């Protein structure tokens, strides 16, 4: 539905370079990247609020690279919502209809509909300055959606919120999209947010798109160490592929050999997910081909599990339940065995 080709914009602090994107009808598409990487400018380019130096944007095959924003029929919600402070909630929501010269009765009808959808009937005459973060977000969404835009652009819509509210509103966004099916581009720096909402994710780094794909795909198979680190992958190491008969290993710098299944050769990165590693006091005799002895050097409480750091020559992060920790009596300094399958090692 939206095709972006070679979009480039040079700015003072950073550049947007050669962006290619292909977003499907009704898709919830998340662009994920660290702050200060030009994500907002990319949205503004799509909206027509900023002119690209090069490249083209197509909606349904029609080119609109040169079209002014008011003729693109988009909805945009900024991070801090940008409600018009001199208008009340109702006037904010109907702004898009007024500037289009929509008649009063028709405006009222559209208002009623959108207001019911967002359950904000009680806010209509309120001053926007006294709204909570969640209410502001709903009003901003209502204002953007009342004109039935072809595409909804969301600029970090959740990052200004407290953790509690955030989760609630994330659910709301998901429901909303399931209901209206408006094609949505959502930008964020929070991987969990992307994971919870996205049909597909594009990862942006230094003004470039470095990986695009389904959320699980990106999490499980990052294509670069930047993506791996950014999405919070633990246990990422670099080493060289060794072939010993049938078996393949990656040898790390310190000589540690990890059994893997791969067709790659030479220098590679590898990832072992913390939840794929087993801890035991005795060597674990099983089909798993990687078993190392190490010392527990750190124990950290996480929200719903415990994170162990085990030094097996390299520091390996392992997740276990608080229950197991207690049962096994694991403390700092104890020696344990870590076991994981060769097929659980992702090589790239």
């Amino acid at each position, binding site marked *: 539905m939206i095709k972006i080709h070679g979009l480039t914009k040079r700015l003072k602090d950073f550049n947007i370079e050669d962006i290619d994107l292909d977003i499907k009808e009704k898709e919830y598409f998340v662009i994920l990247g660290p702050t200060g990487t030009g994500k907002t400018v990319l949205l503004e380019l799509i909206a*027509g609020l900023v002119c690209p130096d090069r490249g083209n944007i197509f909606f349904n095959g029609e080119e609109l690279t040169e079209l002014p924003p*008011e003729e693109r029929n988009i909805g945009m919600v900024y991070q801090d919502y940008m409600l*018009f402070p001199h208008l009340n909630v109702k006037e904010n929501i109907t*702004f898009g209809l007024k*500037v289009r010269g929509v008649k009063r009765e028709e405006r009222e009808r559209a208002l009623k509909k959108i207001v019911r959808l967002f359950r904000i009937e009680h806010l209509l005459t309120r001053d926007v300055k006294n709204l909570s973060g969640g209410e502001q977000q709903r009003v901003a969404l209502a204002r953007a959606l009342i004109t039935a835009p072809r595409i909804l652009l969301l600029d970090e819509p959740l990052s200004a919120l407290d953790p509690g509210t955030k989760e609630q509103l994330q659910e709301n966004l998901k429901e909303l999209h399931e209901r209206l099916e408006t094609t949505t581009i959502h930008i964020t720096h929070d991987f969990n947010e992307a994971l919870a909402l996205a049909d597909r994710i594009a990862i942006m780094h230094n003004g470039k798109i470095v990986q695009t794909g389904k959320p699980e795909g990106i999490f499980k198979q990052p294509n670069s160490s930047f993506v791996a680190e950014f999405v919070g992958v633990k246990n990422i190491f670099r080493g060289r592929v060794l072939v010993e008969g049938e078996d393949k290993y990656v040898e790390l710098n310190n000589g540690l050999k990890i059994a893997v299944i791969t067709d790659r050769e030479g220098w590679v990165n590898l990832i072992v997910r913390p939840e794929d590693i087993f801890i035991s006091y005795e060597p674990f005799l099983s089909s798993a081909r990687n078993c190392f002895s190490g010392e527990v050097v750190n124990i950290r409480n996480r929200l719903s599990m415990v994170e162990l750091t085990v030094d097996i020559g390299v520091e390996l992060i392992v997740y276990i339940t608080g229950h197991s920790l207690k049962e096994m009596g694991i403390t700092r300094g104890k020696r344990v065995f870590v076991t994981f399958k060769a097929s659980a090692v992702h090589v790239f």
Partner: protein
Amino acid sequence: MIKRAWFQFIFSLLAVLMLIFIAAPIIRLVTGSSPEVIISTVKEKEVYSSILLTFKASLVATLISLLLGIPLAYLLARVDFPGKVLIEGVIDLPVIIPHTAVGIALLMVFGRRFWAGRIFSYLGVDFIGEFNGIVLAMMFVSLPFLVNEVKEGFRGIDIKLERVARSLGASPAQAFFRVALPLNKEHILSGSLMMWARGLSEFGAVVIMAYHPMTAPVLIFERFTSFGLKYSSPVAAIMVLTSLLVFIALRLFNGKEKGIKDD
């Protein structure tokens, strides 16, 4: 503890000296003439008509500057172009040019010796010794107050508000008239007020453009040079009192001052 107190004491003392330097002459001027003298002076036609003339001329200057100055302020706040710093410098020039030189410069352009003045004269608009000339002089010296204040106001409005308006279907004109302009109302009002008050105060540029009809500052000067301090001070007191009253009244009407920042 003693060192701390010492620092704060010296600091406050210097600040208070500065305030006294400003306030004392004004208070002395306003209280220096007896109420009877003031009342009888107000009743002189020459006095009250000169005050009215001053107010009116400055008001007209402000209105013209609003029309021309708001677009300029908006463009400076929103558009980047080469030479912008230069143009911002040009807007400050009226503050630094000697007032009598301003009068001379305006005479050279709007007098009949120059083509611009001749064109206006041909259209029936004369400046020298006329109300129009007073307006020009007041406008020239006071417009930086309006333009700079309005520019700062536009700068303080998040550009994303206008961008949201555009995304919602507003044309550039609609985004300006429905979002930027109403949000800048306070700065426009306070800038206009400052400009109007600054216009009232002008003497050097006005006296060269038009000794007659006599504005209040010119009248004060004339009475001072012709009759001395004693006869000029009641007129000065009346002018200061009236402009103070109008200024305070408008400020109160305008609502609160630009809010004191929270720290």
